[in-house]
């Protein structure tokens, strides 16, 4: 899954809230809270960005943060989303 394009699995119920986003896990239906950085990744997946593009976009938003740290965070967040059944391979 990682290292290639991913898209949100649909249908996934979610709401933006102060400081992040809450999403219903596809695995259990229970809600996950994604804080701001993870919520930004969730938004970027909507545009079918791959892992590299997501990291670059975040780097532009947070220029003071070490790129390696950003890349590690993106990998970790995508892993969590994948574990919860929230991603699927881009069919295009």
């Amino acid at each position, binding site marked *: 899954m990682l290292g290639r394009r991913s898209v949100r699995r649909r*249908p996934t119920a*979610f*709401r933006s*809230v102060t*400081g992040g986003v809450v*999403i219903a896990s596809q695995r259990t239906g229970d809600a996950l809270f994604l804080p701001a950085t993870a919520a930004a990744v969730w938004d970027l997946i909507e545009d079918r960005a791959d892992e590299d593009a997501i990291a670059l976009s975040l780097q532009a938003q947070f220029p003071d943060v070490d790129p390696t740290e950003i890349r590690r965070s993106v990998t970790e967040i995508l892993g969590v989303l994948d574990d919860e059944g929230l991603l699927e391979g881009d069919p295009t």
Partner: protein
Amino acid sequence: MRPSRSSLLLTPLFGDDQVGEDATALLSQARRDRVVPLLVRLIGTGDGVDAADLEKLLLVERANMAHAVTLEHHLLGVVGLLADRGIRSAVLKGVAVAHLDYPDPCWRQFGDADLLVDPNHFEPALQLLRGAGWRNESEVSEHHDRFTHALPMRHERGVIIDVHQAIGRRALGRLIPADVLLDTAVPFEIAGIELRALADPFRLAHACVHWLASRGTYKRLSGAADIIVMSRRLASGAGGLLDELGRYQVDRFVQTGIAKAFAVAQEPVPSGWEPFLRPSARPDLVARAHLSPDRRPVLEELAFLTKLDGREWLPYLRGYLDVGDDYRAKHGRSGPLDQLRYLGRKLRNRA
């Protein structure tokens, strides 16, 4: 006039941003009345609000929205399950108005989901849900299955969906036939999936009927808020809308609901509604039974009996005396004498 706490909580619906008092003091009422999202908008960025209070409020908001997405996740599954078997449904109340009537679904908090199904498929719908892991949250007498307006079903993850075969209790549920409600239902989307909801006039009527007929802690500000957002949007067509609802004798409920909701908000009724908010005729039995400030169980029972087909009387009355094993096990009453005593208490109860 000094704004009441209730009117203050409804302020965001009118686009005002005057807090006027320590808004965080409103949190307990906002939670009880399911209007925490409105309080979040009332406070806005939190300028001048105690940081600990703000954090508490935002945690409550997050928990509410987490509950909302979990409910919607399961609701999508249930609607799909029913559709696969050809059972029509329409989402009611909080979930529907959140997506159709508020500026954003985040503005509307809800505790459960409500789904109207075709009454001819009520029992098959419940069976389908049981097969998918849902359990009855309460039991009704087995002969009252077809008379109850809704049955709450609980999923193992804790969420509840109220499966309705009518949009109101007793006589209220007989005013607008379910096939009219389902035939005129309108589409809306959750997470890209199309569902159905009641058409505008019926959604407003349902909000009014539900809010006016609710008592005690169930009479929540969220109900008044629903009436306010819908009636403001529909004000330009008020006369025609009331004419349409008059065919089902629910116009009085809408007139009364709108007047009372704006009174709670301490705001003027939209001008489009003004000429139409004075009910002309004397209230009928259903309105007298359900619009009084305290419960009137005898009138409610009589009003319901007038709405039943004559052939339904005997099965209905039988349902009070011959309740079935599940109901007996749940409520611990057995035999006609026990049931007659229960019925007597029920008719006297004004709580």
